[in-house]
């Protein structure tokens, strides 16, 4: 009974869980850290010479977030170029009390309100934001990648904080801007 109950819960949970594209996740997981390194103001965003990427998720996506964390850690082996690289998980429910210095948020699928909250925090603390969903860029997040014929970069021009986030020009030449 207990097994059935757990199974039911799983299915119920699964019923409500968002469906992620594995290929896109993998692509983003490998590219986003590199994009962090293309910020010319990166040094200001470091804590103890450590690049910290926080994966922001809703409870339903905990496992997804955890898998992504493992994937990134495996890919980069805790080292991003010359910096230490630390990937943490951040539950959106705890974001109000979140005080750690992070370099970037990798935002998974969130509700609209949560996206706004994350984007406001990011703007407040000069944190680079990467979004799994392209649509979230219009809600205040900065960067996203989709897979079309080839990986395509998108950047929300409104959310670019010129003084604090300063990507190298070739990246800006490469991206597609969303107004």
């Amino acid at each position: 009974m207990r097994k059935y109950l757990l199974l039911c819960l799983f299915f119920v949970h699964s019923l409500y869980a968002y469906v992620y594209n594995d290929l896109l996740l993998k692509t983003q997981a490998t590219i986003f850290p590199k994009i962090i390194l293309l910020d010319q103001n990166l040094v200001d965003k470091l804590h103890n010479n450590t690049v910290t990427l926080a994966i922001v998720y809703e409870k339903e996506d905990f496992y997804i977030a955890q898998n992504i964390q493992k994937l990134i850690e495996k890919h980069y082996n805790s080292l991003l170029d010359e910096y230490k690289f630390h990937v943490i998980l951040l539950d959106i429910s705890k974001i109000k009390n979140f005080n750690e210095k992070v370099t970037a948020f990798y935002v998974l699928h969130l509700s609209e309100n949560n996206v706004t909250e994350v984007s406001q925090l990011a703007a407040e603390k000069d944190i680079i934001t990467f979004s799994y969903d392209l649509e979230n860029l219009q809600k205040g997040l900065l960067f996203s990648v989709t897979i079309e014929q080839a990986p395509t970069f998108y950047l929300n021009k409104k959310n670019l904080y010129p003084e604090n986030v300063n990507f190298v020009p070739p990246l800006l030449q490469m991206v597609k801007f969303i107004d």
Partner: protein
Amino acid sequence: MKNFITKSLSFKIIMLIVIVSSLVIISIFFVSERFNKEAFYNVELDKANIIVKTIEPLIALDLYLGMDTNIKKITQDLMKNSNILSLTIKKDSQTVYTIKSPSIKKQETFLSVTQDILQPNSKRKIGTISLDYSSQNYQKLINNYRKFTFILSFVLIVLFLLLSIYIQKLLSPLRTISNALKNYHPDKPVNIPLVKEHNEIGLISKALHRMQKKITEHSKEQKNINENLERLVNIKTLELQSQLYTNNLTKLPNRLSLLKSISLLEEKSLIIVNIDDFKEINDFYGHYIGDDILVQFAKKLQELTHTIEYRELVHLHADEFALLIKTKISEEKFINIIQTITSSIEHTLFASDNNMINLRITIGAVLNDNDPFANTLEKADIALKLAKKKSLPYLIYDKNLGIEKQYKTNMQWVHKLKEAFKNDNVLPYFQPIYDNTTQKIASCESLVRLIDNDGNIISPFHFLTVAKKSRLYPEITRIVIQKSCQYFQNIDCDFSINLSIEDMLHDETIEYLKEQIIFYNIAHKMTIEILETEGIENYEEVASFLTQMKKMGCKIAIDDFGSGYSSFEYLLKLHVDYIKIDGTLIKNIDTDTNSAIVVETIVNFAKKLNILTVAEFVHNKAVFEKVKELGVDRSQGFYLSEPKDDIKNLL
């Protein structure tokens, strides 16, 4: 012609332009080719570099983000550029992507450019891009450049050719002017071309035209001046010729004319007429009257000789005229002419300025002389001199007179004397004069000797007369004075020198004597022997000189006393210290009673006047004993000692 072309101004200018331009063009060509090649190469290299640099950031980002598809797309787009032959992208030494142009040809040259790929933010090297860029454009540029250069060179050559033609055309008027001037002569003016040209050639032509006019005018003036000068020169030449052969005073032909006439004749007779003592007329009446008399005398001679055929009357000089008879004449007729002239002149009174003057003449003549060496005048002159000497009214030259020989001898002696002066061979010899009481040398007489080239000692008998005639005598006196004073300067012995009246009247000789006496401080040793006292004409001057000498400390002796008409009066007036009795009285005194009486009288007279007597010409013991017996104080002669050049060993 070829030489002219190479030396012509236009050729030189053109050649200079061609050489300089060629050098400049060649230099520019080589320099610019070198720089342009490098520039063209750099342009193509820059192009390749720009391409690489342009794509590097994109490639870098794609390579960094691992977006190989993007790299492929970029490179494929790039390969559309036909100049890009190949592109290779390496990541960490591993070739990630390489692409080659399908249109690449074998052996095509290219430029290779390699660029590091840097991480976009950290600029860390993450790979390399290698691009091979075609050098076709470079080759094309070089070819175009060469083509341009060749065209430019060709254009310049054409320009130089045109320039040279133009320069030749510009300078050709100079040749035209030169050709026109070739035949220029001051008397034949030429038409100078291009006078109307309004340029430098025109200016030159105008200047030449003006110059030609001036030269022509000047030439005419010069010609006139030359003609005038020539005329004047001719007149002057005639005048000078006339003066050359004419005596200005009497207008008779002169000596030069006579010599010319003599040289042209084979047989001729010549009469030289000399007016006796004409100098006195000049001195007494003055030169004006003297000249007037000469003119009258000339006229008189013309009157006397005008009937003689083939004659020429000549005025030789002041008081000497000559009559040249240019044909053979008999002796009788010749003598008749001479006597007529002599007689007529002596019976003529010449009147001038209220003065009536009678002239005497002496004639020397030569008859029918055919001497080819034109010595006729000299012969007549010799005859004249001999006639004067012998006080004859006239004398006709005869070679048997021996005058020429005497002249020759005299000339030889003159030559010998001059040689002796030059070689310092006129010397004093010293003959001792002994004191008859002590038998010791009392003094010495300096006697002049000449040493000829053979070393012979020559007595003055041979050359003194000639020396007097040839004015060499004062020099002999000076030599004897100087050398005698020098010799006796340091010898304890008196000496005497002989001075003639001529010496005593010769100012320079007297001054010299005084100088030497003072210089050697020798007056107290010196005795002056006066020669030729017989008939002293300038007694006052001689007496004055002797007084001066006595004042200086010299003693005076009268030489050759007793010969001729020696005057006792002089002994009193001249205050003499010695009397040297003439040798003619002494030489036979041992046998000739009369001589002994005369000598005794002289000795007695002298003793009363405290005058010492010297016997000359003591040539043997008998004479010596006799003079001693007669009381003569001193003796001199070959018996005692002949003259010597050095008598120190006798003292």
